[in-house]
């Protein structure tokens, strides 16, 4: 469970997050909203890349904001990025191994087993020893997911993981994302503009707009909430 209380982020005159109070219950949760709503800012706060002006984030009774950025990853906060950030010059195996050897513990054989296991989970065993720069976008997206879930993550932040993927590959990705909580015990937070992906993966969803929490609850109900529809279509009365 991730408890966010009174979180505000200010960039000059712009308030990217405005007193957001929100609890992610666990499992796979959606985080949606129009462009500029503050979704990635919230991810950056959780990752330690952005320091909030005020607020608190508690995960399993641990004060997340007290930890430095890379220590959060070691503690279990993992993420992907909107732009693929895989390491071009390394192989698929080395990409995932790099995360495991810094953010997880284990002997050499345990590490190899953990990395191979997660590669099998995301369906990349066949390209295990390929250098990433030779691989297509789909594989790079899946490598990012593998990097985020290897070891023992507590929170997995997926920032538009399906961006640029065709429908068929998005469905494959959805299948993988749905399996992450059961496999790792981590809470997954999915940001995506593809509502079919959010619906397919998330039992629970929160909606941000202009840095404020608009709605939160079961995904089916939230997507039909008038305030949420207004946030997307711009109803001035709301």
């Amino acid at each position, binding site marked *: 469970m991730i408890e966010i209380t009174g979180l505000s982020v200010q960039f000059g005159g712009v308030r990217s997050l405005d007193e957001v109070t929100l609890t992610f219950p666990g499992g796979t949760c959606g985080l949606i909203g129009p462009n500029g709503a503050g979704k*990635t*800012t919230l991810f*950056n706060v959780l*990752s*330690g*890349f952005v320091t909030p002006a005020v607020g608190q984030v508690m995960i399993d009774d641990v004060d997340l904001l007290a930890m430095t*950025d*890379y*220590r959060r*990853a*070691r503690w279990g906060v*993992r*993420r992907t*990025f*909107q*732009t693929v*950030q*895989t*390491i*071009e*010059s*390394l192989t698929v195996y*080395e990409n995932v*191994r*790099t*995360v495991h*050897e*810094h*953010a*997880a513990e284990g002997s050499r054989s345990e590490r190899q087993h953990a990395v191979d296991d997660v590669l099998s989970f995301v369906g990349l065993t066949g390209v295990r*020893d*390929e*250098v990433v*720069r*030779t691989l297509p976008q789909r594989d790079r997206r899946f490598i990012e997911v593998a*990097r985020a879930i290897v070891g023992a993550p507590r929170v997995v932040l997926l920032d538009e993981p399906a961006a640029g993927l065709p429908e068929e590959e998005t469905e494959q990705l959805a299948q993988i994302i749905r399996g992450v909580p059961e496999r790792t015990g981590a809470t997954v937070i999915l940001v995506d503009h593809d509502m079919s992906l959010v619906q397919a993966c998330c039992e629970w969803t929160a909606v941000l707009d202009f840095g404020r929490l608009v709605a939160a609850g079961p995904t089916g109900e939230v997507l039909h909430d008038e305030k949420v529809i207004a946030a997307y279509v711009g109803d001035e009365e709301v």
Partner: protein
Amino acid sequence: MVGRVQSHRAFQPAIVIALFVFAMFAMPSIFDATWIHNFTQMAIFSMVAASVGMLYGRVGLVSLGQVAPYGIGTWITVRLAFATDVPYPLLMIVGGIGAAVIGVLIGLPALRVSGLYLALVTLMLAVGVEILLFQLKLPNGGSGFRGVAASLTAITPVRRPVFAETDVAYFRFAVAVAFIVFMVAVAFLATKPGRAWASVRQSEPSALASGIDITRYKLIAFGLAAFMAGVAGGLFAGHVQNSIGINQFNRQAALLLIAVVLMGGINSLWGAVLAAFFAKILLDFLTQNVIGHQFWNDFALTIFGIGLMINLIQTTKSMETKGLLE
């Protein structure tokens, strides 16, 4: 395996060993004393070039100041060679460690900047060390901390290892040291630090999100690079013995170094060998053996300058498009 392009992978063992054996046993029989002198310079310079290439190509740190640890390594080794009877190879290691310590200390404030700003900071470092060496002067067998004798008649040559007192033996020694230093670099690149550096170079936010302590690994990179350059400095001292000038470590040398490194290529350790070939063999060949000596000298430097300019333009473009966060 498809697409194996990493520098430690591209440094194929069979080719390396064949070249090493060729250099150690065939080259002294093929080339005369002048060329052996030049190839010794090339072996030494390749280590400095590798230190620059490793920092830039593998960690993404643009350093124009690697002549500084090169000069510091030279000074420490020369000073200790005159002051002690410690075996010369050990002095070179001490010189390398001294350069590494200073390299890490300098790296600390440099961590706050990156890209072209880091290049400027490190160039200022090179200027600072140049001024320091100009004031200290290189030891020449005198007494005191500086070890500088006032009278020219007091100059004595820097001693060499007992097993490498002749030029040919010293060439072999230089090749062996370069081989070892390159293997140390490969060992780092092929293991945990190398993967961390690759991650940092690709994307610092992604590296942080992978649990990588970026500051620690950048300092390790600065330290290792300075150590490599420092050891090369010690080797250089024994090579030239009594004609060491600080112009080897000045700002022009710093710019020439980065230019040839970029020309040689920064994504592979072979690039460092090629850079050393450009700077110490090709340039000398053109200026000493081709009609119009000065023309070739100027022409070669112009080519190196163009190479540097192209790379800086590309780096700037890459920095502009590297918007990783929202």
